[in-house]
């Protein structure tokens, strides 16, 4: 493509989106004359403007139908992958509902950890690294608990082999236990930990409570990563995890902090911000739609995602989320729990200006969409 053609093409930036300009650039033959090229560009601009959504088009309704209809087919298509050695992840309709409701505490939190070189290519290094980030609790190293009522103490026997496998020594455990256990006397000899009562008023049931508490103490790894699984993705290896902790994982120097993601929208929102959350919503929903072999235009998903993040925080499509922000009482009442909304509105003396769609349907008036949108203004003389 010649320089003056390139110039002409670039003068349309802002009027025509970048991806369309690139498509024109690819498909127009290089030998085209300037006049012809101008004609092509003019036609493209007209075609693009005609393809735009018209003012008053009810895009939300179209999006709801376009996502909802394939959703009905998805319900039947959900299946479980029994015996597959991957981390079990919620997919299908349950996952879509989870994302659109913007639930806190999702069913199967999961991370995809990408690694820097050389970890992403070397299996051995990768395995070692994976073992270090897995959250390991104290109870995994215990072979025997013994609550001795006669001596009023708790004896814990450690499993030496497991400790060696994890590159831990009794000394490490000693340090962790000493910082976590207070108000009790602790003595450690070899692999045996003896915890006794200190104060006179303490009872044996305190020891029992301590035993339950001590089981959950984190010995090593990153909090929340319950399972780690190295998987090959194309040329490189990545680590899939059950449980998430995006903030701590991104801080590790071995981790590629530009690509590592979690599937928890709230976590992404807290760590990476609102725009990242929007992108994550689109990615997560579209991943499910594609995996089910359905065909939903991504623009619908983008519209819903934009709505969910419009006020700076992630709001679900629920009566506590975006619906609660609607200005009209009748619109809120038409979604869920109508009586609650009507009573509260009556108590507060709320005014409904009937500016939106649902409330106008309810009172049998033309709705402000399409040709119902423009109003007539008369100049009074």
């Amino acid at each position, binding site marked *: 493509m010649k320089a003056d053609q390139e110039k002409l093409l670039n003068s349309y930036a802002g009027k025509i*989106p*970048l*991806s*369309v*300009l*690139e498509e024109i650039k690819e498909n127009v033959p290089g030998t085209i004359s300037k006049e012809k090229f101008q004609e092509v560009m003019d036609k493209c601009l007209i075609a693009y403007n005609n393809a735009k959504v018209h003012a008053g088009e009810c895009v939300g309704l179209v999006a709801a139908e376009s996502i909802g209809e394939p959703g009905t087919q998805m319900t039947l298509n959900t299946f479980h992958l029994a015996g597959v050695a991957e981390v079990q992840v919620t997919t299908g309709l349950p996952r879509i509902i989870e994302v659109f409701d913007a639930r806190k505490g999702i069913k199967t939190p999961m991370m995809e950890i990408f690694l820097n070189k050389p970890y992403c290519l070397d299996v051995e290094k990768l395995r070692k690294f994976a073992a270090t980030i897995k959250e390991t609790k104290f109870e995994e190293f215990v072979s025997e608990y013994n609550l001795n009522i006669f001596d009023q103490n708790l004896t814990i026997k450690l499993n030496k082999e497991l400790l060696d496998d994890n590159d831990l020594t009794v000394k490490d455990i000693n340090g962790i236990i000493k910082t976590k256990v207070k108000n009790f006397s602790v003595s450690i000899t070899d692999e045996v930990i003896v915890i006794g009562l200190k104060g006179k008023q303490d009872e044996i049931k305190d020891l029992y409570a301590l035993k339950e508490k001590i089981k959950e103490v984190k010995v090593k790894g990153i909090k929340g990563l319950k399972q780690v699984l190295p998987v090959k993705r194309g040329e490189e290896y990545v680590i899939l995890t059950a449980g998430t902790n995006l903030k701590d994982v*991104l*801080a590790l120097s071995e981790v590629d*902090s*530009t*690509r590592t*993601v979690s599937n928890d929208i709230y976590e*992404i929102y*807290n*760590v*990476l*911000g*609102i*725009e*990242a959350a929007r*992108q*994550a919503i689109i*990615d997560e929903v579209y991943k499910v739609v594609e995996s089910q072999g359905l065909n939903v235009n*991504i*623009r619908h998903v*983008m519209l819903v995602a*934009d709505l969910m*993040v*419009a*006020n*700076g*925080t992630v709001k679900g499509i629920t009566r506590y989320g975006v619906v609660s922000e609607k200005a009209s009482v009748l619109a809120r009442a038409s979604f869920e729990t109508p009586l609650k909304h009507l009573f509260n509105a009556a108590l507060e003396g709320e005014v409904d200006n009937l500016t939106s769609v649902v409330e106008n349907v309810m009172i049998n008036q033309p709705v402000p969409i399409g040709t119902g949108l423009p109003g007539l203004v008369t100049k009074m003389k």
Partner: protein
Amino acid sequence: MTLDINKHHLIPKHSKLSDAEKGKFLDSYKIDIKSLPKILIEDPAIVNLKPTAGDVIKIERESKTAGITIYYRAVING
């Protein structure tokens, strides 16, 4: 912590509009700053821009359909 989250692929480029740019932008769309979508002042992606409430943040999103789209958000106190 030296981690720069703005290099993350999920985060599009954020930049702050100057006062002149902001006025021009609001005029060109004939809108009030209140009608813009919001972003919280403590949002991790904009802390290094040191925004104040009432600023307009320009966001250059990579879009699957349009290549690059430009979006604007008004900074609000959380």
